[in-house]
């Protein structure tokens, strides 16, 4: 007997309902975003949840999309780097701060850094707490940058926190 292993899915991605057919039941959200929906801003790297390049926001929380079952994300609000840009195509405070930092090199980790940093900024804004350098280091420790621009990333998130408050 052949087991059925393909499913239909409806995902809410960047505010739009996206109907998908012919998805393997075990496919990761990263796979579905990149190869079914063409949203390649979310980067493929370690595929084991260690590097953070694939970070997206699910219901406002930073999540590694490479270890998130796409089928389990049905009924949630998924936000990718493509949905992060404002309608006016204006850079956010965090993006401005990252650009101002300059030392960022290849940029491969940056979509994940932005999704993670934005969720961290929102979390602290909600709690009305001042973000410290230690908070950023702990909060962003799930985002690796092989060009080692960590100091600039920490500075940029702190700078963005300062701009927002």
């Amino acid at each position, binding site marked *: 007997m052949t087991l059925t292993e393909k499913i239909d899915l409806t995902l809410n991605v960047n505010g739009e309902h996206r109907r998908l057919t012919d998805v393997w*039941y075990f496919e990761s959200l990263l796979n579905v975003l990149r190869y079914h929906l063409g949203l390649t801003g979310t980067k493929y790297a370690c595929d*084991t*949840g*260690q590097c953070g390049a694939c970070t997206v926001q699910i219901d406002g929380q930073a999540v590694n999309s490479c270890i*998130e079952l796409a089928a389990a994300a049905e009924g949630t609000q998924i936000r990718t780097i493509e949905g992060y840009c404002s309608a006016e195509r204006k850079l956010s405070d965090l993006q401005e701060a990252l650009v101002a930092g300059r030392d960022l090199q290849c940029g491969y980790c940056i979509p994940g850094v932005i999704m993670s940093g934005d969720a961290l900024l929102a979390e602290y804004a909600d709690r009305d707490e001042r973000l410290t350098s230690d908070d950023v280091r702990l909060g962003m420790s*799930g985002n690796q940058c092989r060009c080692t621009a960590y100091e600039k990333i920490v500075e940029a998130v702190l700078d963005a926190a300062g701009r927002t408050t």
Partner: protein
Amino acid sequence: MAQKCDRLIVAGSAAEAVAAKLEQPEARFLSGGTSMFADVGPAGDLRVTLISLRKVPELTGITPTSEGMDIGANTTAAELLHNNDILHASPLLARASRSLATRQIRNRATVGGNITTLRADHTLAPALLACEASVRVATASGEQQIALSDYLQSMSAEQVSTGLVTAISVKQVSGFTGFTRVGPRNGPCYSIVSMAVAVDQNQRKVRLAIGNAHRTAFRATSAESIAEQAIDWEATQPDPKLCAAFGAEAARECDPVTDVAASADYRRHAVGVMARRLLEEALHAGLRGGRK
């Protein structure tokens, strides 16, 4: 219960999940899914039948009880870290959660998954054992409450049941609690050895739980007895000899393995040093509070 395909079942209740597992014993429960995906790795093949627990309402919520706290199995590590009830009743759990992987993983990894996957390097089991946790297991014949230490031992002996862990009950500890671990680096990584201690001055009890130095996380009961009998519960003065004996006994009780991360000798040595330091810290703190 919704069946998305032959291989993916979305359970709507604990009873549905248990029934599905009975029907397909080889199927795997999926909640946060972080370990499952990470274990498979790049180009891996996750071709097992999955029973998703994400929509099971009985697995959610953190409820204060007369003894401490009931924690739903689907509670994430991030919720443990930020929940005010947990911070009040069991700061040890919050401290252990802080050292669990990265923020992205903490947003998804669940308490239930962290203990039922039985990975020796997983973080929460030692902290839960030090809080004298018990697990509530739903089976086809009803619910059972089992001490976490018994649950871990029976599971590691491959007495794998079709039961589903629905909640974890922890006792409130009044006194010093501490959690420590050694790993290959300071950033997010697996533990080579992890350890939790709870010293309850009111009940004159010491609980020492160790991770990754045995087949599963375990309580070093002999070391606990040494400390309980020798601590001056009134004066709580630092006592280097007692701390050294406590560490040595903990090292004697463990049964570590040599693997790619560390040798058995290194692990045993680490256990001795970590246990000694935790008790020193507890006595210096007058058996109150603990590291934030």
